[in-house]
């Protein structure tokens, strides 16, 4: 039976149209790269942890740190509080390390990288040649060359295959490299900050990640430096039955600024794959970090087969006064999303912002939101979350705003809106509000509604097809968040919103 035949079709929509659209298969990045891979043996144990550490040529302290995390992980149990129906995961039935064979000998520059790998990123629209610009940006040709530079760290399964603009960034004193390299070359920074925002035992998945993370990006922006270009990491899962565990560490020293982008895709496969990343951001006095994500992991097919389990811990620590962080996320992919990019507002007058669009279609499940922990005086936070559910998906906003007794004169504003398309999906809101002093103000607003019939009628009347009209209305609904994205991402996100909702009518 076709997955759509038992859905209620809105009046006036041809069933055939709905079926065609449903069967179109809208995930653009579902192909895989045929490349010879090298795997660590399946499963996880201390030997695997040692092996990953050894492959990355890590110093002793790093191995000890990993083993400590691994032992901690063994004592922990799976978090069960999210509104997610997670099939049992056999942590021994997957690979924890996979790298292309050609990467055994580290290529000295991008020219030495296997052309197949480069072709993969080219096909994804990710520029690994420094003269290239991000594909798909309308009007980019007219922008001066300097303004559209984006430095990219490309991670393929367990390893980073290359980082662009390293030399140019180094001139400004910025360190942008794979974290495996940072562990070897900047141990003082890594040792000081790794695990200082997300401790090893923070949660089940952060402990697992701490034990087996293979690569990821490392960024250090020195005092007073404004990054001359946007930095980005592109994650690609290619190998089957392989989990990706990347670790990102960003340190913005006093008075610095960086805008960081993150993108991700994976091939279509019948079996679900695990992705458990940790992102830590340390922001010192007067520094500012913008972190934008467009998450487009393979969401599984219409019946919920396959897809990525995206269990991610992201946290920013505004460690000193007037530090500022802004999280923007567009979550369209993944079969299951469990993700709460959070802000610790420790410094006085520090600021945290969280803008999110989460779209769940077909059988996708998303439980995502943020935590704003106000510890310093005069701290401010703002949360804007837009959840869209379609098909048979379940979409939950979960957030926590805590104002501590000493965080006087603090301010939080939260707005979370949900939109339901179709009567088989669900939209949920689970906010926690804890206010422990009188001089602070906290406001929380949430609404749930459906696509407005009048708006839809108006579009249809003007000859806009139903799906296109819905995409238009949804883009309008999510505008506040889309506007917070850097330009390169805003374009991509906008079209992603339309793609993710394909087949949702009815």
């Amino acid at each position, binding site marked *: 039976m076709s997955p759509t035949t038992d859905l209620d079709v809105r009046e006036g929509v041809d069933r055939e149209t709905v079926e065609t659209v449903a069967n179109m298969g809208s995930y653009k990045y579902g192909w895989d790269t045929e490349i010879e891979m090298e795997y660590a043996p399946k499963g996880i144990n201390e030997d695997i942890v040692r092996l990953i550490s050894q492959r990355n040529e890590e110093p002793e302290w790093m191995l000890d740190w990993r083993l400590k995390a691994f032992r901690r992980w063994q004592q922990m149990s799976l978090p069960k*509080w999210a509104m997610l129906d997670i099939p049992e995961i056999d942590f021994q039935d997957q690979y924890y390390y996979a790298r292309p064979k050609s990467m055994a000998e580290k290529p000295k520059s991008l020219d030495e990288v296997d052309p197949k790998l480069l072709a993969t990123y080219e096909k994804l629209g990710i520029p690994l040649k420094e003269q290239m610009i991000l594909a798909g940006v309308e009007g980019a040709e007219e922008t001066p060359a300097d303004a559209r530079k984006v430095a990219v760290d490309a991670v393929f399964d367990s390893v980073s295959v290359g980082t662009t603009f390293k030399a140019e960034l180094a001139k400004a004193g910025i360190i942008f490299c794979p974290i495996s390299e940072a562990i070897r070359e900047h141990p003082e920074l890594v040792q000081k900050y790794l695990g200082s925002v997300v401790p090893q035992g923070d949660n089940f998945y952060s402990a697992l990640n701490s034990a087996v993370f293979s690569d990821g990006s490392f960024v250090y922006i020195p005092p007073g430096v404004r990054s001359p270009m946007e930095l980005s990491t592109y994650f690609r899962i290619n190998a089957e039955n392989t989990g990706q565990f990347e670790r990102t560490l960003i340190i913005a020293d006093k008075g610095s600024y960086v805008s960081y982008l993150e993108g991700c895709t994976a091939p279509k496969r019948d079996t679900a794959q695990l992705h458990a990343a940790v992102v830590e951001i340390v922001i010192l006095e007067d520094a500012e970090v913008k972190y934008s994500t467009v998450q487009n992991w393979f969401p599984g097919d219409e019946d919920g087969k396959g897809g990525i389990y995206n269990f991610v811990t992201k946290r920013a620590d505004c460690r000193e006064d007037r530090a500022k962080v802004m999280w923007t996320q567009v979550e369209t992919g993944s079969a299951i999303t469990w993700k709460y990019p959070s802000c610790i507002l420790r410094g006085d007058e520090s600021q945290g912002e969280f803008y999110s669009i989460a779209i769940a279609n077909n059988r996708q499940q998303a439980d995502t939101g943020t935590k704003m922990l106000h510890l310093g005086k005069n701290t401010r936070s703002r949360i804007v979350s837009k959840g869209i559910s379609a098909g048979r998906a379940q979409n939950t906003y979960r957030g926590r705003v805590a104002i501590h007794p000493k965080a006087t004169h603090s301010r939080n504003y939260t707005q979370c809106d949900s939109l339901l398309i179709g009567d088989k999906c669900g939209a949920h809101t689970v*906010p926690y*509000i804890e206010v422990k002093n*009188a001089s602070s103000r906290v406001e929380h607003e949430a609404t749930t509604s459906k696509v407005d019939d009048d708006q839809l009628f108006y579009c249809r009347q003007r000859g806009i097809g139903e799906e296109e009209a819905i995409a238009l209305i949804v883009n309008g609904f999510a505008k506040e968040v889309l506007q917070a994205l850097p330009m390169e991402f805003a374009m991509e996100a906008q079209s992603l919103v339309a793609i993710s909702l394909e087949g949702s009518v009815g």
Partner: protein
Amino acid sequence: MSEAAVKTRAAEADALTQRLDALTLPEAGFTAAARADALARLRAMGLPHPRDEYWRFTDPRPFNAPLPQPIPLEETSPDSPLFTDRDRLVLVFVDGRFDAAASSDLALDGAEIDILSQAETRADHWAGALYGKLEAAGQTPVPRPFAALNTAVAADGVLIRVTGKPAKPVHIIHRRASAEADVSWHHLIRLEPGAELTLLETGMVGARSNGVTEVDLAPGARLNRIAAKRAGHQKLGFSGIFARVDAEAAFKNFELSVNGTLMRHEAVVEFVGDDAVAHVAAAVLGDGRTGPFHHDDTVFVTHGAERCESRQVFKKVLKNGAVGVFQGKILVKPGAQKTDGYQISQALLLDDDSQFLGKPELEIYADDVQCSHGSTTGAIDETALFYLRSRGVPKSRAIVLMILSFLADALAEVEDESLREDIAERLDAWLTRHA
């Protein structure tokens, strides 16, 4: 399971046994089966633990203790002056036991009133089909052990079946007679199709209290319930309301709470027929000056039918270290189209020692709905205060006026104007005393 966890489990089981052993189960009657069932359910679910998600903001352990701390009786008159100047049918409960001498005659046109302890021995009673049923239905998806405990052991209560529109309200008054009373009562209110009733409940309850009210509204019925129980200082109280609202029926519930060391009010409302209305509101005043104050309102509204309207309005005024908690949920089941669900929780913190903890939730499985919630926490608006003072209103009076205006939305949920005025006067007096 680790050894420590096994030990904790065993200790918890012990606590439950101790708690239950300390109670006397009433003689069997038409409630016997329901009581046995509730006890079995309670043993299966166990008592709540501070780690339980549903108790994350309120420590349940004082409720778990086998016996409460004795609290000396008040020297002043225990009766609340609220609603006493009107014609009403009065039912007095002393330490949770019905006091016939102090009460009115039970005859009321359009209603049938019985007392649980007196009627219980009868084999057939209309309440037999209902007792404990709504409480049991309200146990999913979240267990409510203290409500199950109540069904099992409640000593007394009132059974009201309304068939018409009684001319006067029924007024339940609680009084205290002993310092150590651990009181539990269980009321059952059934309104037949088209029936109407106003139910008032006031007074002073025991050192620890557990009250459950089951409300069953047939199509087109209307119940207005106003409760203003005085907990007094240092007391513990749990209360649960379980309402089943059928088509075109209306349930309006308002609670006024002042003081009490640890209060937990649970309201569970389920719409089972289309076009029905339910409003659940509360005004809470907490002053920690006379002892700790922790007040928890936990609400769960389930929309299981079409075109129903629910409103939750909760306002809390907190000072001197008082803690206010609000956990509210709107669940819209698949097919409950055209639902209109609204929820607002607001706290006014009068000093830096006080706290507001909230979890306003939505869980929605139908697309053609309008659901919203809002929650705000903050201090008195200095600009408005300045305005009033510049008009010659003394500061303390200006603050009282602003608090009253903050509480007005909750109070507006009381439909009857004269009842609303009585409550406003009482609030004004309390605020002036505690200014």
